[in-house]
């Protein structure tokens, strides 16, 4: 073997060792973690029962057939005081899990009052998904109950069309191991992450203020791996000058493309969720299937109610939250609508007659034809008053 070949072999050997060490470090493997799990507890799907929603056991599986009235579902099972520290690796299998549902793992410990809930990757196939629970602060002591909750994807899925029947196949709790931690890290990197409001600003945290423990994001890990490769090439291969520059450029190029392939996979996953939600309906109807369908329906009803009003008619909206107001106004277009705010000095005597006041997701507030607005009482007629929405027309200001 020539000197150059020996250096090449040493480079690759060092690279494999260093990258493996990096991967183990990222996965949170400690020096005393065993290579393989020394024990496991397997729970067939049929052992779980529905707490919310409808589910029926069939053989070793549990078929979840319908959600509860609030469109969520929950399946749990009691545990014989299982030692959390001994079984920190969770793996689970589902079949036909709907693309428009989110999945949470819930558990209760013997000394804990509340149920703990953590968001876990939703399955995209029937393959097992592994999650490392050791970083969850509440996973300690004796676990007496565990289960899974499902609900429509927040900020995205139209709730009423999100659910489809699925099957809980099995759940396994393993002891800590290299393989379990590596599978968990890889599972986190390849988890399905649907679009959220924050996606337009940042791709990484599941939400602003998300404090759940995460493995370092893949770009950072790849950058470290790249740095190691470049350092080893300089030290062992003794590349210098243009050859070193070529090596660095090639390494960056390959790393960029590798990350891009991961990103394309993620992007395609987001697209599949969208296809699941909107793919079956015509193009022009997709905007009618939204996550806040209740607001959209109320706004559509208001448009019908006010269809004979002149198009310049001013409509003021009060609602329970700023987002609700903004979404209501968007859905209610082309009504000439604004959020109700303090009146300017020029209108200190009150709103002009004819103005429409809408209260959405708030109780009706008119009493005996009078409605408090700002620091005045307005004389109003009730156009509609209901538990969800009330609509009033201003007649004048109470003297």
């Amino acid at each position, binding site marked *: 073997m020539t000197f150059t070949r020996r250096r090449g072999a040493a480079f690759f050997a060092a690279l494999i060792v260093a990258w493996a060490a990096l991967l183990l470090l990222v996965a949170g493997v400690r020096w005393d973690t065993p290579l393989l799990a020394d024990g496991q507890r397997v729970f067939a799907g049929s052992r779980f029962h529905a707490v919310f929603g409808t589910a029926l056991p069939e053989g070793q599986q549990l078929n979840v057939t319908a959600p509860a009235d609030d469109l969520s579902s929950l399946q749990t099972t009691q545990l014989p005081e299982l030692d959390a520290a001994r079984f920190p690796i969770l793996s689970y299998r589902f079949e036909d899990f709907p693309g428009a549902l989110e999945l949470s793992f819930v558990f209760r410990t013997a000394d804990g009052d509340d149920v703990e809930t953590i968001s876990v990757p939703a399955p995209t196939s029937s393959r097992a998904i592994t999650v490392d629970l050791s970083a969850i602060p509440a996973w300690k002591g004796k676990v007496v109950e565990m289960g899974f909750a499902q609900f429509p994807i927040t900020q995205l899925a139209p709730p009423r069309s999100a659910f489809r029947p699925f099957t809980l196949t099995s759940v396994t709790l393993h002891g800590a191991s290299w393989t379990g931690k590596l599978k968990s890290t890889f599972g986190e990197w390849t988890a399905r992450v649907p679009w959220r409001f924050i996606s337009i600003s*940042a791709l990484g945290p599941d939400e602003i203020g998300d404090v759940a423990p995460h493995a370092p994001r893949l770009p950072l890990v790849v950058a470290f791996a790249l740095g190691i490769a470049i350092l080893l090439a300089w030290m062992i291969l003794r590349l210098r000058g243009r050859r070193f520059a070529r090596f660095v450029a090639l390494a960056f190029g390959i790393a960029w493309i590798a990350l891009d392939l991961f990103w394309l996979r993620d992007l395609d996953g987001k697209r599949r969720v969208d296809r699941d939600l909107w793919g079956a309906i015509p193009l022009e109807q997709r905007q009618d299937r939204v996550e806040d369908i209740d607001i959209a329906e109320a706004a559509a009803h208001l448009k019908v109610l006010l269809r004979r009003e002149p198009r310049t008619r001013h409509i003021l909206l009060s609602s329970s939250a700023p987002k609700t107001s903004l979404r209501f106004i968007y859905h209610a277009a082309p009504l000439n609508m604004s959020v109700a705010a303090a009146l300017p000095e020029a209108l200190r005597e009150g709103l002009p007659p004819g103005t429409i006041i809408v209260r959405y997701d708030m109780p009706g507030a008119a009493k005996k034809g009078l409605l408090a607005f700002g620091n005045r009482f307005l004389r109003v007629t009730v156009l509609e008053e209901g538990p969800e929405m009330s609509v009033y027309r201003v007649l004048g200001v109470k003297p």
Partner: protein
Amino acid sequence: MTAATLLAIWVATLLLGSGMWVAVAGWPRQAADRWCALGGGWIVGAAACGMLVRVLAANALNAVPTRAGLCAAVIGALCWATAWWARRSVDALPAPVPLVRRGDRLWIALLLALLAWHGWILFDDALLHPTLPWDAWAVWLGKAKAWVLAGRIDPSVSYEDWIGHPVAATRTGVAWMYPELIPWMAVWMAAGTHWIEPLIGLLWFGLGAAMLLLHYGQWRALGVRPLAACAGTYVLGSIPLLDVHVTLGGYADLWIAAVLSMGAHAWLRWSCLGERRQLGIVAIAMLLLPLIKLEGSVWSIILGLACVFRALPPHLRARRFLIGAGVLLLVVIACIALGLPWTGVARRYLDTGRFFDLGQIGVSAASLAAALWAQWNWNLLWFALPVALWWNRHRWWRSRMTRRLVAFVALPFVVMLGLFLFTSAARYAQSYSAVNRLLLQITPLLVSVLVLALRAPDVDDKPDATG
């Protein structure tokens, strides 16, 4: 809406924009200029069609296809005819065209295949979902939807004005004072429909594709080899946050990024290659930027200052910085005196100029670092850029073109860092919100810095008269 109407809208956009481009920049004799006319033309065309909608059909939006569409097609055709008629007297000798090496073709094919894969996923996803991100429905497309469904464009006024004039045909909203070019463009894309959100979202897909074509053309025109220009185009097209803005259309930041980069590259061609007609493209960019978003005024001023800076006669060069600072000060004072809305936004960012203590700076710096290096937003851009600039520092420092582009990007970038580290705007860094979108506005220029800094050593700038 028929597919024919949709096709006609896209063709009219391209015809008008590319016509304006070649009328301003000259007949595209070289392939690089044809790519620029195609990509840049689409961007300019979308903006110009939006303006035509506002001017010609504001009171009868059902007439948009006939009035604005026909007008766009006619003006576009006239512009092309003018450029063709004036082509001989305008164009200079063509520059030598570097050939594609045989070994490069495989790489180019791979990069194009990856870009096509991106394109397919983004296109399909854009057509699947309705308008999703917050500001898209709350700010940028809210006005357009109300106009389209009402059949006319009503002026937006403050809440006080609106509530005080109950019979006036006006509207109000959280973004009543924001520029309206994007809503006008959305109305143009909605022509012939009763507001179909996935079709409106395609405006951003078109922008993304046009931006890639434009950058490929500009890099080729600046002397970058085909493989490097393709690689740069792929890098730009594979930046995750940019992909997000293409498929989750509705925000203004990608428009700012595209138009700012369009203006900056035209400025580079004028100042380094002596192509005077590129000043027309700079002027278009300066006009469009404030019409897109309030921050656009700041970018427009920076572009204008860069032009003034380069245009100063040689004997004033020693005093350039002083003159530049003086002009900037005068412009800012004039903007404040005229009460231009962007000054209000700047004040809001600075929030009376309050500075954080060291502890807060640490949190902001950590958040900023996480946004740049620890999330999926930028692939490896923020690793590659410093490495490339350091590694090739001697070579790119000798290149006047790269040096000028670095200077053009570095100053605003440093200002952004200061903004997000030392002022109350740090909250945007800590929430990962505005910080990434503001950085997105200079991302095409950062990729351009990367491409130019890594240019092959045998490619150098042409001498220019201004030094």
